[in-house]
């Protein structure tokens, strides 16, 4: 249960990190909090030549609050968000979800950027951030680009990183005062990876209504215009259209009817939660 004998560097800035990951002759792996990578290293599932620890990079440990967004550096931890050290502009959505990630001892080191890039479909951040309409910013040899988080996740454990690229920040839009959200995950044990996640946002002032079926074993299934899931009624939970939800999940590639049912139920509960909020 000991990792292979890798080399270790801790660059001071993003440019330094990019220089290390540009070398494709060696197996190079970026590490942030290491709460997913650490176990894989101990198990020797991952056997890198070089670990690039990015937690020493000041830029990645910063949060910038703007008028209509907040930008989290990649190394902001779950506990930073849970405790409010990093501002939450989502009417409590991020804080509430952060509180439910793994365990406190993990949240004190696990990072938002690491969790997203690890691209486990069951990770909480992927689902809630997709519902909130967040984008990720990547930096590489060809400069910087920003893409919606649901496009960043390409499948199980696969993020859309081009050679030499790394995630530097996550941008979350500020919700308006009337916005409501819901988040429900189905777990058998506290802190474990979810079997199904439903995430929902309705923000009438910004004309946004999004729903996400998460923990799908692949990419999250995002419904960008989720009003059609709500039926005719204006009260979100009153007319949740389970049949349409089931069709959307099936079209998203989920064949097993029990899986679909759990995912539909998770989203229904998230929608109900938003209605009650």
């Amino acid at each position, binding site marked *: 249960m*000991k*990792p*292979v*004998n*890798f*080399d*270790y*560097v*801790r*660059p001071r800035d993003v440019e330094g990190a990019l220089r290390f990951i540009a070398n494709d002759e*060696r*197996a190079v792996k970026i590490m942030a*909090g*290491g*709460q*997913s*990578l*650490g*176990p894989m*290293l*101990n*198990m*020797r599932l*991952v*056997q890198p*030549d070089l*670990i690039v*620890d990015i*937690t*020493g990079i*000041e830029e990645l440990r910063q*949060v910038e609050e703007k008028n209509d967004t907040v930008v989290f550096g990649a190394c*902001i*931890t779950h506990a*930073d968000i849970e*405790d409010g050290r990093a501002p939450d502009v989502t009417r409590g959505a991020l804080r509430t979800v952060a509180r439910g*990630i*793994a365990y*406190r*001892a*993990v949240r*004190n*080191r*696990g*990072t938002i950027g690491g969790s997203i890039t690890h*691209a*486990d*479909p069951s990770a*909480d951040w992927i689902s809630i951030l997709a519902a909130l309409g967040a984008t990720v910013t990547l930096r590489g040899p060809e400069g910087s680009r920003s893409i919606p988080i649901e496009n960043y996740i*390409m*499948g*199980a*454990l*696969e*993020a859309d*990183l081009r*050679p030499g690229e790394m995630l530097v920040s996550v941008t979350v839009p500020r919700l308006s005062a009337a916005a409501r959200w819901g988040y429900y995950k189905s777990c058998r*044990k506290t*802190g474990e*990876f979810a079997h199904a996640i439903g995430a929902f946002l309705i923000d009438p002032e910004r004309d946004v209504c999004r729903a996400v079926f998460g923990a799908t074993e692949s990419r999250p299934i995002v419904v960008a215009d989720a009003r059609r899931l709500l039926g005719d009624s204006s009260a979100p939970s009153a007319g949740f259209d389970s049949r349409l939800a089931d069709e959307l999940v099936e079209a998203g590639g989920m064949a097993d009817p029990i899986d679909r049912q759990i995912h539909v139920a998770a989203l229904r509960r998230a929608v109900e939660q938003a209605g009650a909020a």
Partner: protein
Amino acid sequence: MNTINLTINGRATSAPCEPRTHLADFIRETHDLTGTHIGCEHGVCGACTVLIDGVPARSCITFAAACEGASVTTVEGLDEDEITAELRVAFSREHALQCGYCTPGMLVSARDVVLRMEAPTEQDIRVAMSGNLCRCTGYVGIVKAVQAVVADRRARGIQPIPDGGRTRLGPAGSGNAAERGAAPAPATTMNGAISASAARPASVAQAENWKPQTTFEQSFTVAHPVDVVWGFFGRVEEVAACLPGASLNGPARDGHVEGQIKVKVGPISAEFHGAADITRDEATRTGVIDGVGKDRRSNSTTRGQIRYAVRQAETPGETRVDLTVGFTLSGMLAQFSRSGLVQDVANRLIAVFVQNLEARLAHQMRGDAGPPPAAGEFDAGSFLSSVFLGQLKRLVGRFFRRN
């Protein structure tokens, strides 16, 4: 080896350690502080929980090098701590320990609950402590002890500190030290050192009663006639060339081939060396591939069987291929189970395989000169630089906690 500087239990220390040394080993091996226990060593059981810069963290999945300059407190350093002293009394009173193995981690996590939570219910405490596993005495006494200390302190007017007193952003333990620069000479590990000396059995025909641990089915359609596709599947070298990451050591002899296949899922990689026996039935247009392989790096072995059936698709001129894949994995890679993800991987692998197959068949149909199109041209990111269908179900473990 590098020298790591840390403050442990209030004392500045430094000791040489390899980058791969995790914090739990560092404090146990170099400082004889054996109160920090190592249980699962992959972040699940909580026995190794210590305070890093004042907040709890898993020392088995935190590398000592990443904590350069940090302040670490182990259970030994909590002797004089007021909350921990109260917890010790309560743990004794409530019989909250039996063998004591989980207790150091329990105390560190319990201290965090007492410090941060105002008036937790029994359920709240159970949730907050759920990252620490006890395997003998159970949780009733532990929960009672924590609850009693919380109630007592609140009754004495001591307020909780919800953020545990942490003011800094970023992972606990990080950000205390300066840059650590240029990588020295390449690590002298086995990485990349793959030799072809893996033992290969002469025949791999599965025993009559062999049953795979895992089986799944897949189908796809190719825009070429049945005869062409069936013929193609008979040419092992071409099939292998369409499978990303696969290569053969030589031509097939009497349906027996030897070769290797690389598997890469996210940061996980393995290279299985092995052999396969292929049988085909012209009458039913079905085939069976029996294979065994060994990944020397992880000392894992796999045994698998792929059955394929080739038949006319609904659209004339097209062919439907049905696959049944069964496999068993043993060794290190088999410790992990994450059902479902394999389907996603398999779907994407098959998409690439079909794409390569189509390209190859189209190339042959046109009678183009020159070499056939290269296999494995797969630009869906680094994910499947190579993949073997069935290996993955157990590769990707749910064992590890989230980042």
